[in-house]
């Protein structure tokens, strides 16, 4: 038995020296440790025939041999694996610039929706609630409640879309239709201050060309409180514009006219849209006209408000350098996939 063990060990070590890759090592392992016919396994099986008094000594010896050759085997395996790994730099080299195939489509959010979101996020962060309302609206909310006289030019059919059999309705020409709606909804009968922003789609009866659309988007916001003045309006606009552009933006106020505010202003921002720094018209704003406050259920002697609004299409066109306003409603994926 002893001799057999020694010879197996010798044989193993001899063969191990000749092993040059992992598969040969695998073969060697089988030759000696294979379950059925491994040389060492066979020896182990003979243990049961060993005389009792020898069992302990032989057993110990066998264990020692097993431990040794297993160790040699594992060391060899580790060596060979290290060798092997050196080759994969070539074998498994890849093109790191190639995309995963097949190509997957990507989805895109409409630039207008993104613009509206940026604006409403800025308003939300300043404590304004956000709510949209009807696009087909009563003339009452679009004009009457906003201090538009009955014969104001904006009401003419050449400016505003009307609906057959419903003379009291029109497609809203501005999102200002939400002013009185929201003040009524959230002022608790003219007893609570409120802040609201209302972005949305508006309609004007206008021929379409590269700079005109009959369907476009506006963003408006208002705030009502017991003490609101021009200095507050200027400060709120500064904050809002800075929040929107994430930097300090120079702004200026100049006189402007809208029936639902008094005084009314045009707000310009200083920006470079490719021609050097210049003043760009951005928004209309003002202190809410007392007639509008009254219509909304506030006592105008006690409450004041500010409102500001702007068209979105042009701002977004300026932001991205879009040359034709018609792209927004075109549904053309060549346009939409750029955003």
């Amino acid at each position: 038995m002893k001799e057999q063990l020694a010879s197996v060990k010798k044989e193993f070590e001899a063969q191990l020296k000749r092993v040059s890759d992992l598969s040969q090592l695998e073969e060697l392992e089988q030759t000696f440790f294979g379950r059925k016919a491994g040389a060492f396994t066979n020896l182990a099986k003979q243990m049961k025939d060993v005389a009792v008094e020898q069992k302990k000594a032989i057993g110990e010896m066998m264990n020692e041999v097993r431990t040794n050759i297993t160790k040699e085997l594992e060391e060899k395996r580790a060596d060979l694996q290290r060798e092997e790994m050196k080759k994969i730099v070539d074998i498994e080299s890849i093109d790191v610039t190639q995309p995963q195939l097949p190509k997957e489509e990507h989805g895109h959010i409409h630039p207008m929706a993104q613009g509206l979101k940026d604006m409403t996020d800025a308003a939300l962060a300043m404590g304004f609630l956000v709510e949209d309302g009807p696009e087909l609206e009563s003339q009452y909310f679009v004009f009457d409640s906003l201090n538009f006289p009955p014969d104001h030019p904006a009401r003419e059919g050449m400016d505003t879309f009307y609906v057959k059999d419903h003379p009291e309705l029109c497609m809203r020409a501005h999102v200002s239709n939400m002013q009185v709606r929201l003040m009524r909804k959230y002022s608790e009968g003219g007893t609570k201050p409120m802040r609201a922003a209302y972005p949305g789609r508006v309609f004007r009866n206008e021929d379409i060309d590269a700079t005109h659309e009959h369907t476009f988007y506006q963003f408006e916001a208002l705030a009502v409180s017991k003490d609101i003045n021009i200095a507050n309006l200027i400060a709120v606009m500064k904050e809002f514009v800075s929040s929107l552009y994430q930097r300090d933006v120079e702004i200026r106020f100049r006189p402007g006219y809208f029936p639902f505010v008094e005084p009314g202003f045009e707000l310009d921002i200083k920006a470079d849209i490719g021609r050097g720094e210049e003043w760009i018209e951005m928004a209309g704003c003002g202190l809410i006209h007392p007639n509008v406050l009254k219509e909304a259920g506030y006592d105008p002697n006690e409450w004041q408000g500010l409102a500001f609004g702007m068209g979105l299409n042009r701002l977004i066109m300026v932001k991205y350098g879009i040359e034709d306003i018609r792209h927004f409603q075109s549904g053309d994926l060549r346009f939409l996939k750029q955003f």
Partner: protein
Amino acid sequence: MLVSKQWISQFTTIPKKITPQQIGIDLTMHVVEVEGVIDEAQFLDNVFLGRVESVQKHPNADKLNICTVAFGQAHPAQVVCGGSNVTEGMLCAFGSLGAKVRWHGEGDLIELKKAEIRGVKSYGMICASDEIGLGEMFPKKDEKEIVDLTHIASAKDVGKPLAVALSLDDVVFDIDNKSMTHRPDLWGQYGMAREISAMYGSELKDYAPAKIKVQETKHNIDVSVKDTKACPRYMAVAIDGIEVAESPAWLKKRLMSVGVQPRNNVVDVTNVVMFELGQPLHAFNANKLTSNNKQLTIVVRKAKDGEVYTSLDDKEYKLTKEDLVIATKDKIVALAGVKGSNNSGVTNETTSILIESANFHAVTIRRTATRHGLRTDASARYEKSLDPNLCELAMRRVVELLKEVSPKSVVSSTIVDQSNFTLDQGPIDLDINFVQRKMGVDLSATEMVRILTSLGFGVKEKKQILSVTIPTWRATKDIAIREDLVEEIARVYGYDNIAPSLPTFPIVPPPKNALRDVETTLRTLLAHEARYSEVSNYSFVAPELLEKVGEHTKDYLELENPIAKDRPYLRRHLRENMLEMVEHNLHRFDTVNIFEIGKVFKKELEGEEDGQQHVLPRQDTLLAMAHAAKGDTNPFLHVSTSFTTVMTRLGLVVHYEKKTLDDVLVHPGRFAKVFVNDVHVGHIAEVHPLTAETLGLDARTAILEVNLSEIVPLLTEKTQYQPLPQYPSTERDVAFVLDKEKQHEDIAAALIKADPLTVDIELFDVFTGKNIPEGKKSMAYRITYRSDEKTLEGKDVDVIHDKIVAMLQKKFGAEIRA
């Protein structure tokens, strides 16, 4: 509107140190938007008054001529000229070598050099008005027109620098008309002078032309105003001894500086008063208003429907009974407030005129001008609600000027004045505190009074209250309440001088807007997870398109005045316009995945209240998704799976209930109702193959449309956590063939219910075609078994699995595959 610095300087003093650019900025910041500040002579170096001596066709170019131009040198210059109106003898703006011009009025300045144009030498250029910065003064009627100075300059000045020949030494401000629609008082130079005087604190000269002296009563003027609402004031006077002639140079210069072409002394005088004061005037040939030369008849009345008016430029207009006209007994002599007629205009032979200085109702004039597409300088002013008091001032001024430009003229009638107006001039009580609070500035009462007074307001101060009288020129509609006065004070004070200060508000979070939040989340999920792109369609839809998908236009709200005649209906769905977009995009892309979130309009359903005790048509927000890909024979699943995915993200459960429908739009075998949390919220279908063809869809297209307004209330915050299993699970696959009509959702439900130990099932293969009988399909599911009490052994699972197989056979007629 153009405002001339020299003209303004007649009425007030502009401080010398203030540059024209600064005046432009100051006007913008305090009054109205200035779009440009134009230095008349800025581009006129080396530009001379020239005379075209000869014109010959260019041998090598149809549209060019070879001209010689005299410009004060020993020899005329030869130039190649493309001007469409060039003629021999014409006085022109000649750009000699070295002049800097702007080609076609655009781009950078180019210095003129010797040139050879199609083989002919050219030494300079006959200029168009916009090439030398005079576009506002001499508006072009067509693109290739050169500026014709024959009737404007004097032939003896040929060879003088153009700036000298035309005395172009003024600065002109170009005002955006849209910024002064609410200010009737600003439509003349004097009104602007008033603002400038208030801005700079300089004195404003009175506008006080001499009173009219009646010299003889050769004529009797009979004015009959039939509609005093449409015509609150009508003044008229006759002047005889008129000698129609060219206007003096100063008058022509005034008119040209504001972009008006001089005609003759009578017309020019009426124009100059209109541009000075903002009050339109009209001069009639008095002989055309009478049958006996004594009695001049003027009737101010509404037209009859269909009555014809012929304009000064010989165009005919069919009037309506809404139009106001000036007539004699038998004919219309003017469209009131808009334009005169060729039957009564002033000609070179006219010696006797009637001057009209009237006030007309703003809306009447605006509607007439719009109705007939006839907007004039007069109508533009009337539609702003002019002060009727201007009529008299303008009348006095025009008579004063007529005597100057036609010295033999005599006032030959009494002055008729039919006046029916009142103005509310206040006074308005203005609390000084109120002004300070509204401005957020502790402005002194003295400064408030100074500003108001400088703008013409009458102010009496008693304690803390200013009693403010509105001047007539601001009282027609512009100023009515104390807030209006705050604006006057604040804008002159200067908005830039007001220090910003944030308002105080209670610190409370704004109410949530669930619909908006869902829309925002959906956009992100649809675009970035489901990989659909967002589109935006018009709210209007075309009848042809509706017809193609089997919709009835009678169900639709229709625009009264659609701009796009082809899209008059208000959409009830998003899908029609969506499908049109799919069709467009399939020409360029193999795959089209799009979605839209938008409102639709249903007249039969009740929506929000309209503020007047009624309700609006309902306007729910819908979501639509469409998918088409070349080669995808079953696009339905792309849409249904994507929708389920995003709804699952929102914590909602979707199921599709198959329906067979005989319909134009939907594929009869590929249509389902969409349920979210068991609420029916919309539909999904593949487009019917025949309709797909009429729509021109190049690939099978599936579309889903659900009502977001109905989904929003279903949202809850619930997300239930399941503890991790304690014992391992075992998976078994089962594959079977069954009737094609059997639905996955039913099978899945039966599998999961089959035994408490089936904890999960997953469909991993569906197959039809080869080796599968007609009308059948093969399905394969992976079933996961698990117990919460022990590790399942093979034999436990075998029992359940056999039970499930039996169930599939019995309930679904499934043939189990090996």
